[in-house]
């Protein structure tokens, strides 16, 4: 057994695993059939001044997992997602992407900071983040938005990037809008463009932070359709959402975050039909 495997087995005790429904039963041949760990977050704490937002959250996403994070407002969902790609720096805990732990050092106060900026930048290209407010670059056309990171971060040739980008835009139904500027598109179109932009770096995992919360109700469907499509092709993703029906349909694992800890997690049927904790029961009934 290699050292890495030993470490992984040790992790198992204190780590919440996102079980891939398709890979059960799998006890006997654990190390053979185990899909690679796309993301492993261990004992993550995050404090904003006196406010402790995350109080020790661990989560593992295997390749092919679609994990939905649900929870009340202010429960720390966005903070957790943003800690995965270090947009928010954790106070303690560790994050590993595809088995590679992001190396952190003390920041002199009581938090952490990356000890190798280049490593963080490299690992970020494995994470396709989609934001609640789209955050498209306003001075670039949709096509320019989509090819920006492939060309200027990954160093692809422009021609190759454009080819990929056009295919992605066709896929999200925005090929006709490729030369338009973001401000001239509807919210739903902007979010679909943002999804294409995130896909363009060919990430290992897609991270969605409430991708439909800023949209008018009639535009939610078109964005969810695109995300559902990605889930159907077994693309690994972590999705923070308030759309419970959608979460239930696309996710194979639901994580309920409350007060900075994972209060409960499991397959969608268990979480939505047979919640155990009082808080989850209350949360489920409040949204129905």
């Amino acid at each position, binding site marked *: 057994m290699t050292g890495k495997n030993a470490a992984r087995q040790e992790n198992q005790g204190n780590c919440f695993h996102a079980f891939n429904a398709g890979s059960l039963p799998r006890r006997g041949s654990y190390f053979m059939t185990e899909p690679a760990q796309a993301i492993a977050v261990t004992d993550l704490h995050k404090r904003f001044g006196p406010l402790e937002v995350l109080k020790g959250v661990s989560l593992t996403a295997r390749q092919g997992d679609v994990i939905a994070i649900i929870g009340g407002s202010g429960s720390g969902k966005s903070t957790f997602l943003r800690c995965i*790609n270090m*947009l928010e720096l954790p106070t303690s805990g560790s994050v590993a992407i595809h088995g590679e732990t992001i190396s952190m050092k003390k920041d002199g106060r009581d938090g952490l900071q990356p000890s190798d*900026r280049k490593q963080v*930048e*490299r*690992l*970020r*290209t494995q*994470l*396709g*983040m989609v*934001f609640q*407010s*789209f*955050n*498209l*670059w*306003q*001075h*670039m056309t949709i096509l320019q938005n989509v090819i*920006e*990171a492939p060309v*200027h*971060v990954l160093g692809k040739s422009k021609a190759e990037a454009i080819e990929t980008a056009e295919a992605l835009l066709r896929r999200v139904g925005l090929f006709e809008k490729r030369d338009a*500027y*973001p*401000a*001239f598109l509807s919210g739903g179109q902007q979010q679909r463009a943002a999804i294409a*932009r*995130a896909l363009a*770096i060919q990430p290992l995992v897609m991270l969605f932070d409430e991708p439909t919360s800023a949209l008018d109700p009639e535009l939610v469907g078109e964005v969810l359709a695109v995300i559902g499509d990605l889930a159907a092709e077994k693309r690994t993703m972590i999705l923070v959402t308030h759309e419970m029906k959608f979460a239930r349909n696309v996710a194979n694992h639901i994580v309920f975050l409350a007060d900075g800890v994972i209060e409960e997690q499991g397959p969608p049927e268990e979480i939505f039909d047979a919640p155990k904790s009082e808080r989850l029961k209350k949360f489920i009934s409040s949204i129905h």
Partner: protein
Amino acid sequence: MADPASFINWGLLALSPPGWGGVLLSGFVASIKIAVGGYAFGLALGIGGACGKLYGGPILRDLMECYTTIVRAVPELVLILLLYYAGTDALNHVLGLFGIGTVDIGGLAAGIFVIGIVQGAYSTEVLRGAIKAVPAGQIEAARAYGMSPFKVTTRITLPAMLPYAIPGLSNLWLIATKDTALLAVVGFSELTLMTRQAAGATKSYLLFFCAAGVLYLALTLVSDVFIRLIERRARRGFVEQS
């Protein structure tokens, strides 16, 4: 002399002597050179200053704060006199220390330097405000896809802040064209000094100062055309309210 048609002696504006038109034009060209050079130098200082103020450590930030505060507090005329005389003096002193001997700093280089220092302080503030106006989410998105801080600045922050900076930067350009006139006090042969000489020599004050005024006006009008083009380009991603 009583003939109204000869009240204005247009012949004085002829390009070759005894007309003074050529002299005026060469002064105008010198003014434009200083304005362009000083503005560009100021812009470079401004980008550095704004980045220093926004992203620099405490010491750099304090230094930048001193620079912008002092330059903006002291009258430009005083600054120009100070930088021009004290500046050349100091430079020659330093060169003397290295045993290089004195150099005669060209009026053009000195003018560009002086105007640039003044412009730099103002453009630091214009650019700092514009950079802060860029929605944080756009910068965050750039970081999220693995861009280095340098790439984020050159690819996202600077182009995205342009629409917010252009009104202020346009004003600074127009001010730069007019600030060149202050260099007359240190004897630099720009448009205003040339005009004064021409007017003094011919006693046709009205004619020459009006001619200079027309040249300054023409520069402003042409600049306005370009500013409008640049602004339209910078605001291409904006939905314009009509």
